[in-house]
């Protein structure tokens, strides 16, 4: 009897994560949906005019901004991250991997505001000097986010590469392939799903990041037409205006969160499908 009660209690506890995700979705949608219904779905996501005091709520520039910054960040983070993971998995001596891996994981713990700050004091002046423009830009945000997601991408793709059964590798090497041929033709394809999952998780981190982006992106309300122009992302829009918004304006920020929520749900679903172990 007592044992049964404990089991039921634990089941209830175990469902709290599920309950929480639905509660989060419910509360955000409840605040956001009425506003979207009022201004119209199309006008909300496809209008370029955001002027809350005049009742215009168009978030297209921010959707484009978020996607542009995220895509570029993933290209940077994936290229560097996968190179690093391949080097550590196949070429670097074992002892160095044992030291470097925890160090890289440690870097994932550094607060995002610190990355943003480094962007402001080092990267922005550099971009301004080299390419001109204000410095606060799509490019700056993408570089900072690309660096921020590196530890995630490296750690997960390294795990994926190491999880490839050594037999595959030995078979290829025994046939006379070089280590690079083996890595490129055997190990990489075998680890593909894990590596793609690493990229998508990095993408999720990049698109959801707020504080670092606010600090370096410039937050202008215009449609970004060049990489050197300032941009505002969905997340920064929420964080910048939440402090003083009320009424419809506040609802519009929740609706912005709703759009972000949907984009992330789609990304995560893709990641889950891809990363699912083949049976």
């Amino acid at each position, binding site marked *: 009897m007592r*044992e049964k009660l*404990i*089991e039921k*209690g*634990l089941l209830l*506890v*175990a*469902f*709290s*994560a*599920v*309950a*929480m*995700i639905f*509660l*989060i979705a419910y509360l*955000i949608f409840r*605040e956001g949906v009425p506003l979207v219904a009022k201004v119209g779905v199309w006008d909300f996501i496809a209008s370029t005019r955001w002027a809350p005091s005049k009742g215009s709520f168009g978030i297209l520039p921010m959707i484009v901004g978020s996607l542009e910054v995220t895509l570029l960040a993933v290209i940077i983070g994936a*290229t*560097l991250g996968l*190179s*690093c993971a*391949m*080097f550590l998995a196949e*070429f*670097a001596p074992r002892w160095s991997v044992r030291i470097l891996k925890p160090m890289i*994981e*440690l*870097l994932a*713990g*550094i*607060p*995002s*505001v*610190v990355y943003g*700050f*480094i962007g402001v004091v*080092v990267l922005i002046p550099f971009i301004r000097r080299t390419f001109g423009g204000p410095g606060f830009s799509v490019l700056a945000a993408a570089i900072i986010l690309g*660096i921020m997601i*590196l*530890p995630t991408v*490296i750690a997960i793709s390294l795990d994926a590469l190491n999880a490839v059964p050594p037999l595959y590798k030995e078979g290829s090497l025994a046939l006379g392939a*070089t280590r*690079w*041929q083996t890595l490129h033709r055997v190990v990489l394809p075998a680890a593909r799903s894990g590596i793609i999952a690493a990229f998508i998780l990095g993408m*999720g981190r990049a*698109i*959801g990041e*707020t*504080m670092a982006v606010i600090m370096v992106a410039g937050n202008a309300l215009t449609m970004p037409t060049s990489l050197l122009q300032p941009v505002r992302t969905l997340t920064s829009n*929420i*964080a910048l205006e*939440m402090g003083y918004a009320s009424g419809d304006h506040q609802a519009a*920020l*929740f609706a912005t*969160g709703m759009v*972000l*929520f949907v984009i*992330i749900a789609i990304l*995560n679903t893709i990641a889950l499908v891809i990363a699912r172990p083949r049976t």
Partner: protein
Amino acid sequence: MILRPLAWQRIVWFALAAMTLFTLVVLFFIIGFITSKGAHVITLKFLFGMPERMGKEGGILPTIIATIYISLLAIAIATPIGVGSAVYLCEYTRESPITRVIRFGADALAGVPSIIFGLFGFILFVIRLRMGWSLLAGGLTLAFMILPTIIRTSEEAIRAVPYNLREVSYSLGGAKSQTIVRVVLPNALPGILTGVILGMGRSVAETAVVIFTAGSSLLMPKSLFDPARTMAVHFYILAREGLSMERAYGTALLLIIAILLINVVAYLLMYRLTRKMR
């Protein structure tokens, strides 16, 4: 031009080595830069003094206290829920639709960006439940943010406990709940603690959630219902409003040191655990 395979390999080796080196240089530059600019700011007066003129001068004691309170509160709430979930998943069920739903919930929660947690905590705890901006609202919201980490690591730790140990307990007449409390959990403790400590690290580093749920008051928090400003939020405000670059570097360095300590402890626990398994 066709290169011989070994020549190719050499080229690739250099390319990958260069990229790896570049990555490491960038990452360590960040730590080195903050350390070199912030080290001289950290004095006893900075650590234990009250802020003056909105943080332009004086110390950061209230933000350190707020950071400790809020992250302890977050793990105090998240640990029982996370470990309970993990115990249920590992000890009471096989793989089934129910476990798949629970795992889906944890995975989905792990993917929610912090700004959404911020909105959620603001509307639920701060507004609906009338907690106002407070340590309690911040701690509760952070708890749900770190819950997936704790579930995942506890699950791995519990699964790693050898099955024989449970059988011994059963053979001595131990009930299932006794076996879990006296045998499984003590053996899984280092792994569980690793998850808890990593969750604490995330709470310390978090800005977006805290600014929406705990506010940014610089006063010393006296109770759980007081608003407070954590170190990460303080650093963000110092840097963004250009109040004091000096103190921003100092606070950033302190944050990095805190994260470093937290991670080292977590890593040592994990190391002990994996060594014991062998």
